[in-house]
């Protein structure tokens, strides 16, 4: 088994548990959770620009607290802000980061060309970064972050605010990088992107709720039997359905309801109660996250 490139333990507030993350080389590690769950905070801490309140991390064999600068030479970071210099051209932006990462002059030219190719920006080198539209900016920002071929790339909501096509292109690049052995840690709100991660960590209020492959999470997180129910005025019926003893959870998905039953045998009961035949479905990641978020809320209620 490959050695971990990143392992981290952190006490999040007193008594509220630990965030324990371990990532293997070449893994695409998705970081999911509701807004304010602490995803960006975690990533910034791992990049060494935010002081962790407690805990420790070992990244690429270096201690985060004592050797942050050594780590910085071997990681790439890109935030949702696409931090480029707007008044510099595409090429000048790349050149700047090539210099900042001290890429030797001999291979600099070749590396920049490689990046231009990756971002699909060949032929647009002279254009000011300000003129690029969202998707292009995002890919240029990524290329600036990975120009030094880092071992780990941290991406903080890299695909917010760009078109679905651009998101797809971006994730293709990510997968290509992972294929070459780069470890990727990415936060996202998009389920289709989460599906493409090797492993997903779901956090809420700074607490790790679940970590596993998307498939595993879909099969094992939900304890019960998931059905889809298409009834008129579904929204109004949620409160009634939720009170049934054999219904664990009930939420809207499009025009129909996704209902989690305590057991498969209650499908018939639900059919009789609602007058519509429920359709058994395989849970999506979204169902998983709704369930996990609900569990977190319930946990808080008990505490």
């Amino acid at each position, binding site marked *: 088994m490959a050695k971990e490139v990143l392992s981290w333990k952190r006490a999040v507030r007193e008594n509220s548990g630990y965030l324990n993350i371990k990532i293997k080389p070449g893994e695409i590690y998705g970081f999911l959770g509701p807004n304010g769950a602490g995803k960006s905070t975690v990533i910034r801490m791992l990049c*060494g620009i935010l002081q962790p309140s407690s805990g420790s991390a070992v990244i690429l064999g270096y201690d985060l607290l004592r050797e942050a600068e050594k780590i910085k030479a071997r990681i790439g970071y890109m935030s949702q802000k696409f*931090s480029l210099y707007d*008044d510099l051209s595409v090429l000048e932006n790349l050149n*700047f980061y090539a*210099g*900042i*990462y001290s890429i030797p002059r001999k291979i600099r030219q070749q590396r920049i060309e490689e990046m231009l190719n990756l971002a699909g920006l060949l032929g647009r080198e002279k254009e000011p970064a300000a003129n690029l539209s969202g998707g292009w900016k995002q890919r240029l920002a990524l290329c600036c972050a990975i120009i030094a071929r880092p071992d780990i790339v941290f991406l903080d909501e890299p695909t917010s605010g760009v078109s679905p096509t651009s998101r797809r292109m971006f994730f293709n690049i990510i997968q290509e990088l992972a294929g070459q052995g780069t470890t990727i840690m990415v936060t996202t709100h998009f389920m289709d992107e989460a599906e493409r991660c090797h492993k997903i960590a779901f956090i809420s209020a700074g607490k790790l709720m679940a970590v596993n492959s998307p498939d595993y999470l879909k099969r094992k997180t939900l304890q019960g039997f998931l059905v889809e129910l298409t009834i008129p005025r579904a929204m109004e019926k949620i409160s009634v359905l939720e009170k049934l003893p054999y219904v664990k959870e009930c939420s809207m998905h499009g025009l129909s309801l996704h209902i989690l039953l305590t057991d498969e045998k209650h499908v018939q009961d639900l059919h009789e109660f609602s007058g519509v035949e429920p359709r058994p479905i395989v849970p999506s990641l979204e169902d998983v996250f709704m369930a996990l978020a609900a569990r977190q809320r319930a946990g808080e209620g008990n505490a």
Partner: protein
Amino acid sequence: MHRILAVLHKELLQMRRDKMTLALVFLLPLVQLLLFGFAIQTEVKHIPTVVFDQSLTAESRALLDAFSASGYFDIEYVAGSFGDVNKMIDSGKAKVGIVFPPDFAASLNRGVPAQVQVLVDASDNMVANQAIAIANSIGLIKSQEILAQKVRLAGPPYDIRVRPWYNPDGITAYYMVPAILGTVVTMTMVLLTSMGIVRERERGTLEQLMVTPIKSIELMIGKIVPYILLGYIQITVALIIGVTVFRVPIRGSLLELYILTLFFITASLGLGILISNVARTQMQAMQMGFFVMLPSILLSGFMFPRDAMPRLIYYISNLIPLTYYLDIIRGIVLKGIGFSYLVGQVTALLVFTVVLLIVSALKFKKKIA
């Protein structure tokens, strides 16, 4: 080294594209020099004067001639009563009123002191001080002349000969132009660099830089060096204007001036960088910049002589880099003195630079919170 060069190159590119920066570098010295160089005249001449002569004699006429011949008083109005004199001064048409009593000539001839009243509008300090001083000395000189005549002396008993060195003609521009130059440079350097880091903070590029292996000091140096270049360009522009338009003589060594200027530029840049590290937004940086600039202009000796300041203020003025640079530039340009006379000032600027840079580098941690 790669990293410093990368920042340096980036800064130069951005500088070249920023029209505001270029305007500041070239237009600021031009406008400031032309405006202040011509406008600031600390010597007040041609003060509008009203006369109420109740004596109307050869004696009163002679004293009046002395007043107008001095060049400081222009007798523009003749009043027929005290009321008229009051009105003229109240309305601001005249700044000075000269009143001769009816018995002026008679007293003079009897050997009794003949009184002349000189009314001065002291709401303007500069004008009043000048008018009072000149009126007093005209009175003294004329009295001496009369006394000398009476005792049949060849001349007045004392003969004090004053020789104003370095600026014998008292040309204000000689004194002002070097000072304006220093002010303009420090203003530009502080304002531009104070934006330097905070701008990146606002745009989010600083967060990106923090994740890279760049060291704080490398970033500071890469950001400062291009501005040193700008400072020199600006000084050159200002010197050319000073020499061609205002005919300011450069008596000392130009090379020495350029070398010593380096310490002043770096001290100003250090101040700007420190502001940039402390400020969270460009707006804040701008406000802090002005907070620093105003005392620089008022207390450095640019406007008012430091010797006249109260002790406490005098000590505070020692904390302003411009104070030392004014000594340096006035010393080299007007007095023609060299480094050996300016060691103290240069040392002070060097200390400023080192302290400000160290504090800035310490203050700038590669953390966002």
